[in-house]
């Protein structure tokens, strides 16, 4: 499909066991794809927010939104794609830190406004937050030094208040 587009969808769901599998099962059962999915409790402990990123043409995304709405454990579906919204991902990156490259790594940390959260003889662990684009950029820079391991979250997102 040429008109495929990335959609970030925010869901408010009942915070109970099985909800995640209802949402995941809906996607796998109907052949929709999930690029990333993040879940955590909201201020109301009975409700969780799920942020999921998916891809599809207009017709498929319309179905995704409707099908999600149809799930009884889902309270609200907000497709953020056509509103202004803030989106963040986080990555923990273990990068090899040879003596001669340590300063360069710290410069990159500074430029990208990330943090060093663990240090060892041959390695820094960095905490990076930002959009998917920013994380991709820093990963490409750090790969020159050698990345040992990474752990990434999916995207989380909220609509900008002025747009509400």
């Amino acid at each position, binding site marked *: 499909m040429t008109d495929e587009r990335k959609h970030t969808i925010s869901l408010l769901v009942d915070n109970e066991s099985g909800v995640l*599998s209802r949402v995941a099962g809906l996607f796998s059962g109907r052949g929709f794809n999930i690029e990333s999915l993040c879940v955590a409790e909201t201020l109301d402990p009975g409700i969780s927010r799920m942020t999921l990123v998916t891809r599809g043409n207009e017709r498929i995304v319309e179905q995704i939104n409707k099908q999600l709405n149809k799930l009884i454990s889902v309270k609200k579906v907000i497709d953020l794609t056509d509103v202004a919204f803030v989106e963040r991902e986080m990555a923990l990156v273990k990068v090899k830190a040879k003596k001669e490259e340590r300063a360069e790594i710290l410069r990159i940390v500074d430029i990208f406004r990330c943090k060093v959260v663990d240090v060892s003889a041959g390695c820094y662990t960095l905490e990076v937050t930002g959009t998917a684009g920013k994380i991709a950029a820093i990963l490409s820079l750090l790969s020159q030094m050698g990345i040992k391991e990474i752990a990434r979250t999916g995207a989380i997102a909220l609509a900008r208040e002025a747009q509400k």
Partner: protein
Amino acid sequence: MEILKEEGVDTVFGFPGGAIIDINDELDKTDIHYILVRHEQAAVHAADGYARASGKVGVCLVTSGPGATNTVTGIASAYMDSIPVVVFTGQVPRVLIGNDAFQEVDIVGITRPCTKHNYLVKEPERLADIVREAFYIARSGRPGPVLIDLPKDVVQTKMNFKMPPAPRMKSYAPHTEPHKQQLERAIKLILKAKKPVIFAGGGVILSGAYKELFEFADKLNMPVTGSLMGLGGFPGTNPLWLGMIGMHGTYRANMSTGNCDLLIGIGVRFDDRVTGRIDDFAKNAKIVHIDIDPTSIQKNVPVTVPIVGDCKVSLKKLNSLLEQEDLTEVLKTRPNWLKQIEEWKSTTPLAYDQSNAIKPQFVVEKIYELTKGKAIITTEVGQNQMWAAQYYHFDKPNRFITSGGLGVMGFGFPAAIGAQLARPKDLVIDIAGDGSIQMNIQELIVAVSNKLPVKIAILNNGYLGMVRQWQELFYDKRYAATNIEQAPDFVKLAEAYGAVGLRATRADEVEDVIKKAIDTPKTVIMDFVVEREESVYPMVPAGAPITEMLLV
């Protein structure tokens, strides 16, 4: 128990077991009628048939593990056909969950994609609310099955009971009221259309929109076709009725749909057996689609005017909007269109040639004739189902009970048991094939022991006929795995169960057998030995446009 009564439950279908024994024990002390089936799949089909014939929610009660897994086919069928059923399953005590305990299975996980909603009751305090919610969810909006998994220790907890108030759920509020602007847009299209067709489905029957649909079609002199699930939603003997649409639809229904300029889909979901090749479906038409489930709209076909709402409410509003319009102009264009449809009808009517061997279509026609079209007909799945749909004309809703979406062989007989319990005075006939009937034949003893005068008409051709038909047409007549000529003697089988068995092998015996069955106030099997290689026509090959039919 109190909630079951409050919800109007008078019949429960089930099979006991260790995890559910407490509920059976309590149920036995009430006046709720418990029907002990012989296989849990049949319990759900029976509850499905009961729900369709009564308009109430069907209820099942089975045990954990295999009892629960056996219900899955029945639940999936009810889900596809949007039938309100509540299934209670036993579960091992809470402390054992996850331990691979004896007869433990994660039935909530297994049925998640084929229920409208399901619950595992973890706290006894939640039980009453959950049961009320389950009935509410099953029956409202687009109906469907709901499952409640009951750990044995939750059920055994003694508590003071207080009837919970009617459920109000934040995350579930079916949208029954159609949008006014969309209705007005639909009216505009209706007033312009020269070649319109109404396409009615199961939603018309579920919402009880029979009268409103009739008024709508009648007022506009607009022809009506129906899906398999929609049969009976519009009188089958009315001149505006085109017959069923789709793979085995009538020539005129499919041609009308292919050539119409406006298609009004009401309570339908445009599934593949209806549309054939989707790009060619009603390709010259604007489409108005009324359905209570927003996911049905725009799912398979692009829609010009989507109307999300209850079919009955929507049709009522359309009818009252039409009151304010002048219909003379639009009605002037109608005779041309109806004349064209009449030509399609008379050049290629549904037909078969009754010579020596009994033709299955002849049997269905005779049943129609001798029951004056008033029986409740259930069907199995395959050729028997299609012939029943083509040759039995339903003038009223809730008389045709079939597994439409999932296509479950073995559905018809237990569904007939359920229907007979819901409507004890009506004549209930399961039109079956010799293959399908063997899939839930064990329920014969349930019909006999409950003194249910259900009739089974087996169109016995010694083949798994629908698959054989595909093999004849598309696989060079290689009849792999479809010859079931070696079969039980159905007459003796009926007798073994204490039912009555009758057989016809010649065309001139058919009428007598049917009459005798109708006059026998007992469970009866009619074994019609029919032409072995008869096929269902018209037929649209899978993937072809519905206007390209094979016509014998």
